[in-house]
C-alpha cells in the first residue's frame, strides 16, 4: 500500500480527489474480505439457482445462520427458506423444524419435496425454550439445518446462534418479520422476499413470482435483487408436472441490480 493511496485527515500533501480515495479504500477492503470469504469448494448451494446467482460466492456457508425477511406469512419466504434449509441436509443430515405454534403442516412439506423421514419437529412451550433448543441444534454436526420463524431475536441470542452454528457447521434458516430490519443482526445473509404479480400464465397455473433481494452477504456492497418463480408441480407448463407432488422448480426472469 503506497502512501499516495492513503487519505490523511489533515488533508496534507496527499489531498487526492475524495472519490478516488473512497474507491481505493473500497478496493482494499474488498481485497481483505475476499481473503476471508469461503472458498468456492466450501459452502453449499441454496438449492435455488436464481438465489445462488445473486450471492457473491454463489453459495452460502455452513456454520452460520441466514434470515428471510417478509412482510407477512404466505408471501413465498417460508417456501423459499424451507427449500434452502432442506437443501442443506444433503449428505444425509437432518432437518429440524422448531415450531412453537404447531402450525407447520407435514403434508405441505411433503408437497414441497421434503422427505419426512429426515425431519424432526420441535414444539417448544416458550420462546426461551425455543432459543435454547436452536442453540443445541446448531451445535450438532449431524444436523444439516434448523428452520424456525422468529418474531424476535435479540443481539445476544443472535450471537449465540452464530457461535453455535460455527461450532456445529450447521445452517440456521430463520424467517423474520419486516421489523427485524430495524435490528442489529448476526446473520451471515439477509434476504427480503416480496411477492410480485404474475400476469402471463394460464388461469390454472398456481405459480408465484417472488422478488428476492439480498440485503446482506459477505463480500457484497450493494443490494442485489432477482426474481424467482415458485412452480406449481401440477402446472402443465412446469417441467415437473408428472402428477401429484414433488419439488417445484425455479426459474429466473431476470437479475436486477438495485
Amino acid at each position, binding site marked *: 500500500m503506497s502512501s499516495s493511496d492513503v487519505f490523511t485527515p489533515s488533508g496534507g500533501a496527499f489531498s487526492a480527489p475524495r472519490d478516488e480515495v473512497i474507491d481505493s479504500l473500497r478496493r482494499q477492503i474488498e481485497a481483505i474480505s475476499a481473503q476471508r470469504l469461503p472458498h468456492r469448494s466450501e459452502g453449499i448451494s441454496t438449492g435455488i439457482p436464481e438465489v445462488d446467482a445473486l450471492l457473491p460466492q454463489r453459495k452460502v456457508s455452513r456454520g452460520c445462520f441466514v434470515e428471510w425477511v417478509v*412482510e*407477512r*406469512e*404466505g*408471501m*413465498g*419466504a*417460508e*417456501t423459499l*427458506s*424451507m427449500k434452502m434449509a432442506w437443501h442443506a441436509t444433503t449428505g*444425509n*443430515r*437432518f432437518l429440524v423444524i422448531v415450531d412453537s405454534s*404447531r*402450525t*407447520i*403442516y*407435514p*403434508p*405441505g*412439506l*411433503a*408437497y*414441497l419435496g421434503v*422427505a*419426512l*423421514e*429426515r*425431519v*424432526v*419437529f*420441535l*414444539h*417448544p*412451550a416458550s420462546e426461551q*425454550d425455543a432459543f*435454547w*433448543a436452536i442453540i*443445541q*441444534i446448531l451445535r*450438532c*454436526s*449431524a*444436523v444439516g439445518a434448523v428452520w424456525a420463524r422468529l418474531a424476535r431475536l435479540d443481539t445476544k441470542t443472535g450471537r449465540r446462534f452464530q457461535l453455535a452454528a460455527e461450532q456445529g457447521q450447521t445452517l440456521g434458516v430463520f424467517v423474520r418479520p419486516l421489523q427485524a430490519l430495524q435490528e442489529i443482526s448476526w446473520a451471515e445473509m439477509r434476504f427480503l422476499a*416480496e*411477492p*410480485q*404479480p404474475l400476469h402471463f400464465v394460464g388461469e*390454472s397455473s*398456481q405459480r*408465484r413470482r417472488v422478488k428476492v433481494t439480498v440485503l446482506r452477504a459477505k463480500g457484497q456492497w450493494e443490494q442485489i435483487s432477482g426474481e424467482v418463480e415458485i412452480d*406449481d*408441480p*401440477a402446472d402443465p407448463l412446469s417441467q415437473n408436472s408428472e*402428477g*401429484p*407432488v414433488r419439488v417445484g422448480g425455479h426459474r429466473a426472469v431476470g437479475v436486477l441490480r438495485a
Partner: protein
Amino acid sequence: MEHQERTTALASLAEYGLRYTPHVSLAGDSLFFDLTEVGHLVREELSFVLSLLQECHARGFFPVWIAIADTPQAAWAIVHLAFPELDVPLSRAWIVPPGKSWQWVKSLPVEALQIGEEGHRICHELGCHRLEDVERIPLSEWRDRLGEEFVVKFQQLRGEREEILPPYQPQPRFEEHVWLDHPTSVRDILDVYLFGVLQKLEDGLLRENQGALELSIELQCEDNSQFSFNVGFFQPTASAARFSTLLQLRMENIRLSASVVAIRAIVLCAAPLERKQPYLFSEDGLPPQSQDWEDLLERLAARLGRERVCRAFLEADHAPESATRWESCLGLRGKRRRIEEYSKGPETSHPRPLFLFNRPITLETVAGIPSGVPYCVHYRGQALVITRCWGPERIETGWWRGQPIARDYYRVELDNGQHLWIYRCLDTGRWFLHGVFG
C-alpha cells in the same frame, strides 16, 4: 390361581421370556413373544415351545395354549378361537409353518379381529362370518364403514402391516431413595443429594450389567406435594453423570412449592448394557444414528418434554386435520420404520399449505353470488381482494368418527401477494381460513 397371584406369575413368566427375546408384551391373559430376529436364541421352534410349556407348568399355569405364527394377531386368533368347543384341561401348541398363517386362520370367525362387539356385529350383518369373507368386500369400503382401525387390524393379521406391541415393562428393580438431613429447596444442595442417589443407581445397574432406558425422579416436599419427571435414553445408560446432565435440563423448568424432604430415583425401563439399539430410522439408505444425534434428541426431550420432540407420519386420511400422526422421537427407539410409513398420505394432486391452523378461522367474505367464491375477505382486520383462485377441492369424509366434514377448499391469492387455503363448509355455507401457503 387368585387374580393377584396370577398377575404376578404372568409377570414373572414375561421376565422369563426376556431371555429369549427382548420383545415381550403382556395383554390381558395373553403373553406375546416376538421371535423375529432372535434365531440365535431360539434355534428350533418346537424346542422353544416345549421349554415354554414346561416352564409354564412349573409356575402353576395349566392348561396353556401356545401358538407360533407369522403375526401376533394370527397367533392370538389361533389360541383363542381355533378350538372353541374344547373344554378339556390339556395344554396345546400350534406351530404354523412360515408363510401359511393366513391359510390357517382364514376360516376362523371374524371375532379373530379384535375390533369390538359393534364391529363384529356389523361384519355379521354384512354376511361376513369368517375372516375369508372379509376379503369379498374391498378394503376401501370397510374403511368407510368401520374406519381405518379395521383395515389396520386386518392387514396386521395378514402380515401386510407391521404391528407394534407395547413392550412389557417389568416392575422396577432399580430404585434408590434418600431422605435429606434438612428440608431444602436450594438447587445446589438438591443437586448433591440427587447425584448421590444416581451414583447408587449406577452401581446397582452396573452390578447387573443393565442400563436405564427410562428414568423417573420423584421429589417429595414438606407440604406433601410431589414432583416427578422422567427422562429417556436411546441407549441403555448406566452413568450417573449422564443421568445428572439430562435431569438438570429437566429440573430447570420445575418450580418447587416447598422444600424437598426426600428424593427417589426409579429405573422404569432397563435393558442389558451390551445390547445395541437398532437404527432409529429404516436401513433403506437412511443415516444410522450417530452419537451426536442421539445425544441431541435426548437433551431436547429432557428439557422440552418427550412429546415435544416428534416425527411426523402421513396418514391415509382425506381430512386435513387427520392427515398427520405425531410420534415422540424417543418412543421410536428400537423400532424400525420403513420409508413408506412416512408417506402414506392419500393420493392427491391438489397442493397442500405449509401451515395449517389448529382451528379454522371464520372469515367474513364478500361474494358476488351466494354460492360463489368470494372476491373479498376480511382477514386480521383488513379487507383483502382475491385476485386469483383455484378450486374447489371437495373433501367429504369422517362420518364414522361422528364428526363428518363436507368442505370445498380453495387456494386463493390476495392482492397483497399472500396465498391462503380457505374452504366453504357445505353444511352452513360459511367460509373459513384453514391454512397458509408459505
